[in-house]
């Protein structure tokens, strides 16, 4: 606030002696001129395009955009498909997959991340080597992760074959080719990729806890388990929230991993809503339905992100 008054004052002083020159006025406007292109780009390419997509979802666009509004037909079809479970519609599969994937992915990443962070926080030798090992998958693209795990989980090549070779002949693991199980392989690869990152978040949180509090609790006779359950984990609440937001947002946006790991799974059984959107919009010539599914994805993410951002920005402003 105080900053803005300064150029104003300088300008006012200048104005007292002589009229403000064009050059000076330009100087005052300069910050806004610099910001403007980015701001306009975001308004047009993000918010304008979102409105455009919303508009398209109320048309009957097929292969090409059609700008005659025809009402909520696309949403009605999605709504109908939502309950069509026998045989399951692609949309039903996509949203139930998102439910399964979202819950397991978020839950496992948090559990594993917290466990690793707590273990690493026990004054471990070699932490500097272990931490980067847990975190490196985050630097890989989902495509690379998908290719690696596709090979690893392939019954004829990877884990199953290896265990057979080691003598465990009855071991059977073909989830990646099983339409009811394939979504769990996406969970495995996703957790492999993101859990190290959650570990890093929790570790930063643990390092931020005042060691005096821990010592005091230990003197009072708290066991390690009690210490973590009653004191440390409750103090990590903000990190849980951040991790949840990040993971939920990543889960809803997940697209590449399904493509690379499963190519959509047998009969599209591994689809998430993002895959549904892409397929319907660009391959099945159902542009309106694709747009409607994109709008639903956007609303889901907004329901999670907007309250969070709002509270963060408000706290910051105070």
């Amino acid at each position: 606030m105080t900053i803005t008054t300064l150029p104003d004052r300088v300008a006012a002083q200048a104005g007292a002696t002589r009229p403000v020159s064009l050059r000076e006025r330009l100087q005052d406007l300069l910050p806004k001129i610099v910001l403007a292109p980015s701001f306009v780009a975001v308004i047009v390419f993000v918010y304008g395009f979102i409105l455009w997509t919303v508009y398209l979802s109320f048309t009957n666009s097929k292969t090409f955009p059609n700008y005659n509004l025809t009402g909520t037909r696309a949403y009605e079809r999605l709504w109908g498909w939502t309950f069509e479970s026998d045989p399951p519609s692609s949309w039903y599969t996509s949203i139930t997959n998102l439910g399964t994937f979202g819950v397991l992915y978020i839950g496992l990443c948090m559990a594993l991340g917290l466990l690793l962070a707590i273990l690493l926080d026990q004054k471990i030798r070699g932490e500097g080597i272990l931490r980067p090992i847990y975190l490196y998958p985050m630097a890989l693209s989902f495509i690379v992760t998908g290719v690696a795990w596709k090979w690893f989980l392939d019954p004829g090549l990877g884990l199953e074959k290896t265990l057979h070779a080691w003598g465990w002949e009855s071991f059977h693991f073909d989830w990646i080719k099983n339409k009811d199980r394939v979504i769990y392989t996406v969970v495995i690869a996703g957790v492999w990729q993101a859990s190290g990152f959650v570990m890093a978040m929790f570790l930063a949180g643990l390092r931020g806890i005042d060691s005096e509090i821990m010592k005091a609790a230990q003197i009072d006779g708290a066991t390690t388990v009690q210490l973590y359950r009653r004191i440390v984990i409750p103090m990590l609440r903000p990190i849980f929230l951040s991790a949840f937001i990040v993971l939920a947002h990543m889960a809803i946006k997940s697209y590449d991993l399904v493509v690379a790991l499963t190519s959509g799974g047998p009969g599209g059984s591994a689809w998430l809503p993002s895959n549904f959107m892409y397929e319907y919009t660009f391959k099945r010539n159902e542009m309106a339905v694709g747009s409607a599914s994109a709008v639903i994805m956007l609303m889901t993410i907004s329901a999670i992100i907007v309250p969070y951002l709002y509270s963060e920005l408000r706290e910051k402003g105070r």
Partner: protein
Amino acid sequence: MSTASSSAEGRSTLDRVVIYGLLGLFAAFYLIPLFVMLVTSFKPMDEIQSGNMLALPRDPTIEPWMKAWGEACVGLTCAGIKGYFWNSTKMVVPAVAISTVLGALNGYVLTKWRFRGHKVVFGLMLFACFIPFQAVLLPMATILGSLGRFGNDLQDLIGTSLGFGNPTVNLVIVHVVYGLGFTTLFFRNYYEAFPTELVKAAQVDGASFFQIFWRIMLPNSAPIFVVTVIYQFTNIWNDFLFASAYAGSGDVMPMTVALNNVVNTSTGVVEYNVNMAAAIIAALPTLFVYVVAGRYFVRGLMAGAVKG
């Protein structure tokens, strides 16, 4: 007394064993896929089919790597992935540079030259980071389509398209636009903590907007530049959605799309060793950055996650 302390010691040794055991187990969980990729990429095909995937190559060969780089088939073209690697490079460098510089300027304005409504502007840019890109995918395709037609007209008219409709240029535009939110966020949060007094003092001394940015802000921005560049580089290099939507076929594909096609191209025997070599090549740039600047990589991830 002595028994009590020795049993406590025994327990703590046991604790240590359990802790290190678990940590080692998880380290294996994270490393094994990379290890399997690496050893597979150095094995000849018959060794893959007959041998154990965890075994070191008995007869190591770099042929799969040569093949992935120069001969592997992407769809119908069999010229390796080198061209696509180059495509990604051409796209990443300008996209990262432009989005980072714009982010720095935006962050500077939003912290040191505040105006009424600066919070709304920032809030709108921040939310843009989190939208599912599916919500903008189709309109962007339409716009890029008309840019392409405009480029064709120009080509006919003046002999050059001036880059309009060029898929690499398109992807640069897309990545700059949808990366702006994050780069602005990074610089805004960094400059927020930068002493405003210095800026004020320079203003009193008559320094202009750009002089202050150039002489005062930039020399103090090295860490956040590194963080932002790494974050953007990793994201853009690894992007698949935009790449497949706007440059999904032909010889203009970026690396991620090409890799996915190499793996899914099924002409004859699937050459897993070549696939793995190609995957590692695709991952090398970001892995390299991670190895040399891991600290900054993590900071970028955290800044993108725990905003404020």
